[in-house]
């Protein structure tokens, strides 16, 4: 399916994540494969509940108490297969190799620890620094993420910071251990638009300066357009289309991607009515037969009801999962 390139930092193959409760099992991620290259920003986009957060949490196996089971052909991260690691081995990867920034900066900082201490804690773990060098490194990191007058901010409590400032602090903490991959799970969803722009620029600057790779999870196509080199569109637990961001935006081939883009307002070009996607995403416990999108797809035909479409190349590096693709290609 996806051809592996030599510079792939993370290669996920056939990832499946199932959540269990007393009544049922739900397959939130169903056979997802993708790769992230060194220094690349890779976007994972889709509606709420499509499995994008579950996908990125599966990489580090962090589900916050939910009963989830992860299986995959492999999750290769720089020669290591994360899928085969024990919980203890995985905790050595966490923070040092792969770190994460959460959606809501208001709840992701420990309210009973000072800002400086929370950053220093991460630095201490990674570098074993202490005393003045630790303090200097903490200040340098705060400055790097654009917190003004960092010396005075060291002793501040999280509740004294605004959302944007907290997200900067969280990014600083995530970067303290110099990870190679940063998972950003909707890092700007809880922020207003001007702050969102600053945070995204900060992430892009960090990518440039320290060669960070980023897995950007978002439902915001604007964020994808602004930051991502490549993008995968998810629907009901599967990737339906993936490819180079520009190419995919200019020439979307999957009806779902087309519908998503048609639902966006544009500033340029002729005025047209926004087209919302009718219906709702399917219940993961009760998926439709065939293509999972066929119930909402304007181009669905009888075959879509029975045939389960696979990802196929429509152009070099551009994959799409729609059976009608072949008809159109001919």
């Amino acid at each position, binding site marked *: 399916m996806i051809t592996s390139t030599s510079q792939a930092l993370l290669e996920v193959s056939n990832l499946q994540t199932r959540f269990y409760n007393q009544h049922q099992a739900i397959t939130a991620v169903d056979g997802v494969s993708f790769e992230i290259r060194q220094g690349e920003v890779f976007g994972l986009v889709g509606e709420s509940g499509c499995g994008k957060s579950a996908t990125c949490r599966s990489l*580090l196996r*962090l589900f*916050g*108490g939910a009963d989830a089971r992860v299986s995959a052909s492999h999750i290769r991260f720089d020669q290591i297969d994360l899928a085969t690691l024990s919980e203890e081995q995985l*905790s*050595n*990867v*966490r*923070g*040092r190799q792969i*770190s*994460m920034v*959460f959606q*809501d900066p208001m*709840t*992701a*900082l*420990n*309210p*009973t*620890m000072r800002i400086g201490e929370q950053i220093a*804690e*991460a630095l201490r*773990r990674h570098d074993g620094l202490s005393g003045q060098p630790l303090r200097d490194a903490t200040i340098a990191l705060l400055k790097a993420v654009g917190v003004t007058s960092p010396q005075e901010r060291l*002793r501040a*409590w999280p*509740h004294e910071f605004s959302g944007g400032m907290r997200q900067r602090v*969280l990014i600083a*903490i*995530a970067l*303290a*251990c110099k990870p190679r991959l940063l998972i950003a799970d909707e890092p700007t969803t809880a922020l207003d638009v001007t702050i969102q722009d600053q945070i995204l620029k900060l992430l892009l600057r960090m990518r440039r300066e320290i060669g960070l790779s980023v897995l950007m999870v978002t439902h915001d196509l604007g964020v994808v357009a602004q930051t991502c080199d490549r993008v995968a569109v998810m629907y009901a637990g599967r990737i339906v289309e993936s490819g180079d961001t520009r190419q995919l935006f200019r020439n979307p081939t999957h009806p779902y991607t087309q519908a998503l883009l048609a639902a966006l307002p544009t500033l340029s070009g002729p005025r047209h009515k926004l087209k919302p996607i009718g219906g709702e995403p399917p219940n993961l416990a009760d998926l439709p037969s065939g293509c999972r999108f066929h119930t909402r797809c304007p181009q669905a035909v009888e075959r879509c009801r029975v045939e389960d479409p696979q990802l196929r190349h429509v152009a070099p590096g551009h994959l799409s999962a729609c059976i009608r693709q072949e008809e159109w290609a001919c």
Partner: protein
Amino acid sequence: MNAFLTKETRQRLARAHALQWGLLLLATLLLLAYVGPYLLNQDPLAVDFDQALLAPSLTHLFGTDDLGRDVLARVVHAAATDLQIALVCVLLPFAIGTTIGLLSGYIGGWVDAVLMRLVDILWAFPFYVLVIAIVGSMGPSIGNMYLAFTLVIWISFARIVRGEVLLVKNAEYIQAAKVLGYSQLRIVLRHVLPNVITPAIVFMMADVVLTILAVTSLGFLGLGIQPPTPEWGVMISEGRNFILDAWWISLFPGLAIVYVGITFALLGDGLDDFLRPKA
């Protein structure tokens, strides 16, 4: 004071009026309990039948009891005893209950199930019945009182802390700590504990009041401190026979208990304001 309190801590203290009053009353209490006996220079055990049942006067401010002992001296001497017992009877269950609640809530699974069923069983017994049963069957002594209170009260702390842990353990900042690969021990001690301890501390202050009442009640029933050691509950119990003629024997130790109660209630209320970080 300025040397070890930061500006911000002082500001928060300045806002917490209940805490200020509580600390003031506590300081007075400690002063009376530990310095008072030396200032008074009155033997609380000295029996003098010529001086029996004297009403409060300038020589005996709180009057004397049926054995002619000075009530003021006895109230003051009893303070240290009652405070010490109450504190131990609260700190031991606080430490044990907090630890168990923390582990039970954080580990979850069958550990949690077993510990919480044990708590449920103990919870089913009325507090006094259990304490009296333990002290009564093992014999009245300070050691047995410590044991009885610890066995009975830890469940309150365990329940409070466990409940808080359940709220906190899936919070994003705990997730974030896991993402950073911190050890379980570090996460529990540095990230969970500070966020769950405040209600336990506040409850501890309220519990001091209850414990003092319980200790004095046991004394009243003859199961606590044994006469002639001065103890407020014992004194009230002894004064009972003379309540109509010599009200002062029971009244003053009673007022002392009320004073301690108010002190710790204010401390608990004040600490709640002071420790809770403002959102």
